[in-house]
């Protein structure tokens, strides 16, 4: 009797790391040229004005950190259900709106508040926005997605689009059509400088809140029992159930986690960009989703990498003085790069080569 072929991934002999980057077709050479041009552009600007370059880099990094919080939610949910949760971006926006209410209406942090008040206000807003979006994410899974788990993918996808509109409408009714704005709460004074490059308090705060969240998340998924359950469920739901894993609870937990990240992201967005409204989640959701695909959907480090890359590309394009196409072209450039990367690596930068693709 012949040995049955392994039902999952086979193990093709992978070419060496270096060999992978030697193009095998004209398109490949074109890609290499494209990369070379980008490197040249960045290099030229770096040489011309290093301190300007790094301060733009720092802004891009900060924006990327905010995108990363949202991108992770797309990737977490996709990883476990193979579902693109379109409502996720709107959950993020509602989280931001809730945070704006806490900060502006409850704490009245509009004018020129004391540092103590700002710290307490932000901490309370963080807890409330995170809890709110977390609960909202879990509820959406429970009422909208759970029954469709075995239905065709398109049914769940359409439901997700529908949930997205419902959440936008809730935001519209609850917070109105105009932007909720706030004067910058955290000063943009330079906290410290390295050489000519100054690191400002407001951006440092965003990073100081994001980095620990990312570290905790990584630890949670890699090293805890709950994380093991998530990984197992994402690979094979039935098999996970046969191991004694409560699959429903694991999926709820995943949505809670994704929602919590979106809520935290909403607060940081409001602090960082100073304005938010009911449809902010649409655009930002698209950017974050793009980041998740760019990094390799389902891959946590990939989502962070993709988000930071997009943050950087945007800022470099809008801020670098030499040879930059400028802000009119930002979205075209972001998506142009996305398409280019996906042509060469359909599974995304850090995605795995699986039969179902990236």
């Amino acid at each position, binding site marked *: 009797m012949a040995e049955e072929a392994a039902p999952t991934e086979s193990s093709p002999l992978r070419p060496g790391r270096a060999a992978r980057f030697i193009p095998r077709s004209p398109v490949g050479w074109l890609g290499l040229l494209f990369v070379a041009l980008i490197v040249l552009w960045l290099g030229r600007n770096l040489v011309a004005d290093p301190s300007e370059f790094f301060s733009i880099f720092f802004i891009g990094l900060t924006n990327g950190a905010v995108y990363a919080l949202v991108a992770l939610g797309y990737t977490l949910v996709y990883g476990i259900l193979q579902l693109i949760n379109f409502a996720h971006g709107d959950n993020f926006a509602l989280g931001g709106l809730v945070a704006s209410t806490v900060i502006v209406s409850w704490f009245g942090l509009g004018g020129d508040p004391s540092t103590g008040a700002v710290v307490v206000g932000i901490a309370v807003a963080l807890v409330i926005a995170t809890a709110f979006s977390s609960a909202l994410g879990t509820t959406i899974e429970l009422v909208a997605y759970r029954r469709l788990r075995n239905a065709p993918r398109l049914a769940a996808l359409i439901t997700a689009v529908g949930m997205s509109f419902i959440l936008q409408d809730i935001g519209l009714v609850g917070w109105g059509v105009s932007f909720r704005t706030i004067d910058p709460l955290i000063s943009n004074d330079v906290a410290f400088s390295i050489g000519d490059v100054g690191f400002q308090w407001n951006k440092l705060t965003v990073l100081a809140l994001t980095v620990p969240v990312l570290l905790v998340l990584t630890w949670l998924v890699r090293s805890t029992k709950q994380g093991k359950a998530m990984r*197992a469920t994402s690979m094979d739901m039935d098999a996970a159930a046969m191991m004694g894993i409560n699959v429903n609870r694991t999926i709820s937990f995943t949505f809670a986690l994704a929602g919590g990240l979106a809520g935290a992201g909403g607060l940081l967005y409001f602090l960082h960009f100073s304005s938010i409204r009911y449809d902010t989640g649409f655009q930002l959701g698209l950017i974050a989703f793009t980041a998740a695909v760019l990094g390799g959907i389902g891959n946590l480090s990939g989502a962070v990498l993709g988000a930071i890359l997009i943050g950087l590309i945007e800022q470099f394009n809008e801020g670098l003085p030499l040879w930059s196409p400028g802000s009119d072209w930002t979205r075209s450039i972001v998506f142009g790069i996305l398409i280019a990367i996906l042509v060469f690596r359909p599974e995304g930068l850090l995605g795995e080569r699986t039969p179902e693709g990236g």
Partner: protein
Amino acid sequence: MTATEANGGGTILELEDVHTFYGSIHALKGITIEVREREIVTLIGANGAGKSTTLRSINGLNRPRRGTIRFQGQVITDAPAHKIVKMGIAQSPEGRRLFPRMSVLENLQMGAFQRSGKDKDLHSDLDRVYTLFPRLAERKSQMAGTLSGGEQQMVAIGRALMARPKLLMLDEPSMGLAPIFVERIFDIIREINEQGTPILLVEQNAMMALDVAQRGYVLETGTIALADEAKALRQNEQVRKTYLGEE
């Protein structure tokens, strides 16, 4: 033979008139079977007879619409799959269903997931699996998805053992294995059973299955066609013709 027939053993698993559907497809049309302490019971039958569906009805992945399933006297017909594992039913499913992007070791550890288990127990359980399948010790850090079919089968059985089951269910453990390896798997099944675990064994290889089992059931399109001692089934004219390929 074993002591089982002599003392009869208490019943550990009982299915009574179980009906299971896939949508409108009536896959099991009133299955009644039982497994007693220390026994190996085999379920044989043609493709599509409902053998795997019987196991999926027991483990909670396909709830029966009618009938009762009792495990150690408790009704588990409507219990969710993860609770049933905790009660002590583990299995090596059809198609093995390993976690492809986890290592062999991680797969084995997943088997013990539901036990609040101390690490010491885990080590002795791993040792037990590695003693049964020395090959897995060599391969423990390899991704399960890249193992050969036979190696995957070993992991699937080992993973089920890691749950310290009170009842072990095996769905076609010899599927796709080289003949020499089939012999080895059946030796291991006997060995696991002699260590005290009752086994419900689904097999295409009726000859080997009836050899290792004490009792057997023959399934035909969702119903039990025959139920008897394994020895008697081996002698049965109809079984010999249909399932043992004898004229």
